[in-house]
C-alpha cells in the first residue's frame, strides 16, 4: 500500500461521522472482504486429463478431477462440472499424485547431519529446518510435493522425523504435514573407511538397553500415575470428612514422590506402544537380522531404511512384515561409496517388492536438491526388475502409508488433498516434462513455454 493510499484511508477513518459509526463500518467491511475472498479463493478447479494415474485404483482415461477447498471432490469419467469452475485442459496429458521422496535432505541444514552416535529420540528434525532455501523450487518443478526428512544417519537413535510439503511457506507450521512421523535410528554404520564388529555390536545393544529402560520407565510412570490418582482420591475424602464432622483425626494422606518425566523416554514409549514407527537404517545382512530380532522382542512397528543387502534375506523380512524404504537405488547418488554399499544391488527394490514386502523408494542423495531425481530412481528400479506400477507406487502411496499421511496424500482419491502433477508424458519417461504442480488445489508451479 503506498503512502498516499494510507493517508486517504487515515483521513477517511478520522472523519467524525465515520468515527461515530466505527463498529458498523468495521463489521460490514469485514463481511464484504470475507465474501469477496471466499468467492474468489474457493472457486473450484477442474482438470480434464487424458491419463489419470490414481495409483490406488485403475488409471482413468479421459477423466476429470474436480477440486474444491483444496481437496479432491470428485474424480472420474463422468463428473458433472459446476458453473463457476476454472477448467484446466490437460487433454492429452498425464496426471499423477504429487511425488514423495521418502529419504530426503531438502530443507535440512547441512550442519545437522553430524556423525555423533547417541541415543537422542527427543531431538526433532523440525528444529533443523531452514524454510528459506530456494532449491526446493527445482525439486517442486520435477513433481515432488512432499518429502520425508529425518535426523542424520549416525545417531544410534537420531530423533524424530517429519513429513513436509513443498508449499513454499516460510512458516514451518504450515509446511509440516506430519511431525513425529517416525523415530530414526541407525545400526552398523562405518566411520570413515572402517567398520568394527565390536562397535556394531555396541550399537545394537545400546538401542536394546534404551528400549528396555523405556519399558521400565513406562511401568514406573504408570505406577506413579496410579499412586497420584489414589492420593487425590484419599485427599478429597480426607478434606470432605474434615469439613463435616471433626470427630476422628484421620491421617493426612502422604503425597507420593514426584515423577520426573523424561522427553526421551516419552518418545520411545510412543514407539513401544506402536504409536510411532521406528525407522532403522541398516545395510548389512547381520544388521538387518539384528533389527528384525529387536522388532520381534519389543513389538514396535518397523521400517527398514536403506536396507542395502535386504535382497539377500527377503524372505526373513517378508515374514516379519517389516516395510522397507530402499535407497539410494544406485550408489551414484551418494558420495564415494561407503563400506555399507559394498554389496549394493540395483535390483534390491525389485526383489523385495516381489517377495510381498511393502517397498518405498527414496533418493537418499548428496544434498537437498537431489530429491528431484525421484522419478529417475523409480525408473532405475523398474529397469532392474521392479514392476513399473509398483515403482510409481513406491514414490507415492507406499511412502504415504508408511509415514502415516495416506489419509491426505499419496494417491488421487476423493477426500484427499489436491496435491497433483500434470505431465506431458508418462512420469518415468526421460523426456517427460512437468507442466504444472498443484498443492491443495493451488498452482504452485507452472512451466513457462520454452523456445
Amino acid at each position, binding site marked *: 500500500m503506498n503512502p498516499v493510499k494510507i493517508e486517504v484511508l487515515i483521513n477517511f477513518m478520522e472523519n467524525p461521522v465515520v468515527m461515530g459509526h466505527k463498529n458498523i463500518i468495521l463489521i460490514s467491511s469485514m463481511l464484504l472482504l470475507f465474501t469477496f475472498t471466499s468467492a474468489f479463493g474457493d472457486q473450484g478447479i477442474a482438470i480434464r486429463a487424458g491419463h489419470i494415474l490414481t495409483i490406488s485404483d485403475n488409471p482413468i482415461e479421459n477423466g476429470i478431477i474436480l477440486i474444491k477447498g483444496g481437496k479432491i471432490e470428485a474424480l472420474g469419467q463422468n463428473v458433472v462440472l459446476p458453473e463457476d469452475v476454472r477448467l484446466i485442459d490437460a487433454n492429452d496429458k498425464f496426471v499423477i499424485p504429487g511425488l514423495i521422496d521418502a529419504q530426503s535432505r531438502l530443507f535440512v*541444514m547441512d*550442519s*545437522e547431519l*553430524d556423525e*555423533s552416535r547417541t541415543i*537422542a529420540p*527427543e*531431538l*526433532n*528434525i523440525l*528444529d*533443523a*529446518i*531452514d*524454510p*528459506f532455501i*530456494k*532449491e526446493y523450487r527445482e525439486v517442486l518443478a520435477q513433481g515432488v510435493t512432499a518429502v520425508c526428512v529425518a*535426523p542424520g544417519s549416525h545417531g544410534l537413535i537420531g*530423533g524424530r522425523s517429519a513429513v513436509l510439503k513443498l508449499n513454499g511457506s*516460510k*512458516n*514451518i507450521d504450515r509446511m509440516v504435514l506430519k511431525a513425529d512421523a517416525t523415530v530414526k535410528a541407525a545400526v552398523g554404520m562405518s566411520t570413515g573407511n572402517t567398520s568394527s564388529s565390536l562397535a556394531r555390536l555396541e550399537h545394537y545393544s545400546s538401542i536394546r538397553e534404551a528400549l528396555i529402560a523405556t519399558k521400565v520407565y513406562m511401568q514406573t510412570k504408570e505406577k506413579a500415575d496410579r499412586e497420584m490418582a489414589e492420593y487425590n482420591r484419599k485427599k478429597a475424602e480426607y478434606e470432605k470428612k474434615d469439613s463435616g464432622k471433626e470427630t476422628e483425626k484421620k491421617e493426612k494422606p502422604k*503425597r507420593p514422590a*514426584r515423577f*520426573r518425566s523424561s*522427553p526421551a523416554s516419552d518418545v520411545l514409549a510412543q514407539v513401544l506402544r506402536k504409536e510411532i514407527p521406528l525407522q532403522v537404517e541398516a545395510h548389512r545382512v547381520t544388521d538387518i537380522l539384528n533389527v528384525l530380532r529387536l522388532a520381534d522382542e519389543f513389538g514396535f512397528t518397523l521400517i527398514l531404511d536403506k536396507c542395502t543387502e535386504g535382497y539377500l534375506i527377503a524372505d526373513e523380512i517378508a515374514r516379519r512384515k517389516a516395510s522397507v524404504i530402499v535407497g539410494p537405488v544406485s550408489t551414484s547418488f551418494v558420495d564415494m561409496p561407503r563400506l555399507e554399499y559394498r554389496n549394493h544391488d540395483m535390483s534390491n527394490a525389485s526383489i523385495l517388492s516381489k517377495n510381498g514386502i511393502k517397498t518405498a523408494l527414496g533418493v537418499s542423495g548428496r544434498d537437498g536438491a537431489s530429491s528431484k531425481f525421484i522419478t529417475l530412481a523409480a525408473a532405475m528400479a523398474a529397469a532392474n526388475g521392479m514392476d513399473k506400477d509398483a515403482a510409481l507406487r513406491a514414490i507415492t502411496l507406499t511412502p504415504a502409508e508408511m509415514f502415516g499421511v495416506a489419509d491426505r496424500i499419496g494417491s488421487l482419491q476423493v477426500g484427499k488433498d489436491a496435491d497433483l502433477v500434470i505431465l506431458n508424458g508418462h512420469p518415468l519417461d526421460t523426456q517427460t516434462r512437468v507442466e504444472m504442480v498443484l498443492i491443495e488445489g493451488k498452482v504452485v508451479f507452472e512451466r513457462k513455454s520454452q523456445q
Partner: protein
Amino acid sequence: MKSKFYIALIATFLTAYVINASARAAPVRKKLAIKAGSIITISGADIKNGTILIEDGIVKAVGKNIEIPWDAFVIEAKDRVVMPGFVLAHTSSGLDRANENVPEVPFLSTFDSIDPVSFYFEDSLRDGVVAMLVLPGNSTLLGGTGTVVKPHGLTVEDMLIKPYTGLKISLQPTGNTSRMGHMQRFRRYISDLKDYLEEYEQRKADVKEENKPFDEEIDIRKQPMVDLLNKKLTAFIYCDIAADVPKAIEIHETYKLNTVLVLGPDCYKAVGLIAQKKLPVILPPQLVVWETNEETNEEEMKVIPMIFDKAGVRFAFQTETSQYGSRYLWYQAATAVRYGMKREEALKSITLYPAQFIGVDDRLGSIQAGKEATFILLTSDPLDAQAWVDKVMIAGEIVYEKEKDQRLKKLIEKPEEVQKPKDTD
C-alpha cells in the same frame, strides 16, 4: 606581624580553594537554559532557534520564545544542533568477557563484568551515545541478564541507569551441538524450571495448610528465568541465520514472552514472519549485504533497514566496535536514509525506539518536558558525515566536551612544522 602572616595564610588557602574549584568539573547547576540553533526533539517537530529549559537535570520546557529564568545558567549553542543522546539497545562490548563456557547461566549479570575503564565507553561517549544495554554475547544459550549504563563514571554504580534489564538467549549452537540439540536443551531447561516451580508451590501450599510460616525463597539462580516467564524481564533472542527466526518466534509464542529479536545479517529473509508477529528487532551492524541470485547469477544488493522498514517492522540499530562506518550510530541511520528511509524514522531508530526496547523511554530518547536532560550538541546535522559531537550533557551535567578531549586533539591536530635541519657546516 602575626596578623600579616595569618592574612597571607588565609589568602593562600582561599586561592588554593578557588583554583581547586575551577579545576574541578563544572558543578551541576540547578537551572540551565540551552539556546540552540536547531533542536531535534524526536517526539515532535524540529525547532529552529529554540530554547530548552532544564531544572534539576530534567527538561522543564522546550520550544521557541521561552522565557529564561533570571537565575538559569545559559549555554549559547546558536551554531549547534541539539538532539537526544543516542541509545544503543544491545551491545556486548565493555565487558571483561562476553560469553560463558557453560551454556545455561541465566543468573549471571553483566553488572558484574562491565569494565568502566574500557576504551569502548570512552569512545561511545565521544560518539554521542548516552545509554547502552550491555548484554552477554551470542555464544551462550542462556547468557544472563543485562544492565543499562551510561558511558560515564568511574564505577559501574556511577554508570548505572537501570539494572536487571533483558535476558539474553542465543540460538546459535555452541561447540559441537547441533541446532536440534540446542533447541532441545532450551526446552529441557524450561520444563525442568516449571517442574521446580510446581514443586516449590506444592511445598508452599503444604506448609501454608499447616499454618506454618514459609520462608523458602526461589533459588536465586532460577529467578531470572522465572521473571522471564512472568514477563518481568524481556527476552533478547539472538538469531544468527534466517532459519533461527521461526525458532525464536516459537519460543516467544510457546512461553508467552516479551521479546526483542537481535538479528544477524542473513535474517532479513525472515522479514515476513517477523512483520506478522509484530516483533521489535535490533538490526545487525552490516546494513548492506550482497546476495547472488541463483538463477540469474547476478549479484543483488539487499539493504536491510529498507527491507524491514517497508514491512513495517520497528527496529533499532546496533554498532560494531571494529568495522569502520558501522561503529557509529549516526552512520547506521544515515545509510538507511540514503537508501530511502524517512529521516524521522531513522533518527528514532537511534534514540526513541531503542529507549523503548530497553524500557528507559520514560527518561531518554527524546527532548520533552519531564524527560531527563540528556542531549548531544552537534556541530551540524546528525546525518552529516562532517558533524562532530561538541558536547554531551547527561542529566543536566556536561560530561564531555570536544574542546577538552585530549585524545581526540592528538588525532586531529595539525602536525608541528618540521624543523628544518640546521646546516652543519
